């Protein structure tokens, strides 16, 4: 049972463009939704996270949009740069900070930002 569904599987964006990755979850007990960035040969690194009591969170060029009624959330990368080329994972957990709890990951989106 895939509790967190992520799309698209891969994405190619021109430099300066907007990258958008979408996720949908099934378990309404989830209350913490982080996004992770993973470079080849490295472990996932926390990028940005949101709790369901807000609909949007922005940190620099990265924004999470959250739709609780639709059980969907998305990552927007503004002014995408070649250095953003990586695999992005959405995740969800119970426990509002995600600490001391299991993260359920999506299947990942491989982003390539071209010049």
């Amino acid at each position, binding site marked *: 049972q895939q509790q967190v569904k992520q799309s698209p599987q891969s994405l190619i964006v021109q430099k300066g463009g907007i990258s958008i990755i979408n996720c949908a979850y099934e378990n309404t007990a989830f209350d913490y939704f*982080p996004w992770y960035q993973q470079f080849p040969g*490295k*472990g*996932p690194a*926390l990028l940005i996270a949101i709790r369901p009591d807000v609909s949007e969170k922005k940190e620099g060029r990265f924004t999470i949009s959250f739709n609780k009624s639709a059980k969907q959330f998305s990552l927007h990368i503004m002014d995408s740069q070649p250095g953003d080329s990586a695999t992005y*994972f959405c995740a969800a957990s119970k426990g509002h*900070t995600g600490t001391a709890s299991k993260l359920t*990951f999506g*299947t990942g989106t491989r982003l390539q930002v071209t010049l």
Partner: protein
Amino acid sequence: EAGVVQSPRYKIIEKKQPVAFWCNPISGHNTLYWYRQNLGQGPELLIRYENEEAVDDSQLPKDRFSAERLKGVDSTLKIQPAELGDSAVYLCASSSIAGGYTFGSGTRLTVV
């Protein structure tokens, strides 16, 4: 801060052989996790420790996998015997009540 340290980085073994992975979490992090990441997939939790106690091992294939976290610090994950389907990246992560859920770079296991 050194981050979560894992070793070895890579391991190639023949099927039916044993293998062990080691993890040193961030100092002060009382929660330690082992995840498995198959190629092209997101990580999946194998086991979670709170200090020395395994509090969630429901996804650990206990017939061949074992783990320990002696003294609530370092941890070892073992597979015996390894199967071809065990080829994956094994990730260790740690966190504390204050936060800081951090992953190591993982051990890439290839079973031939």
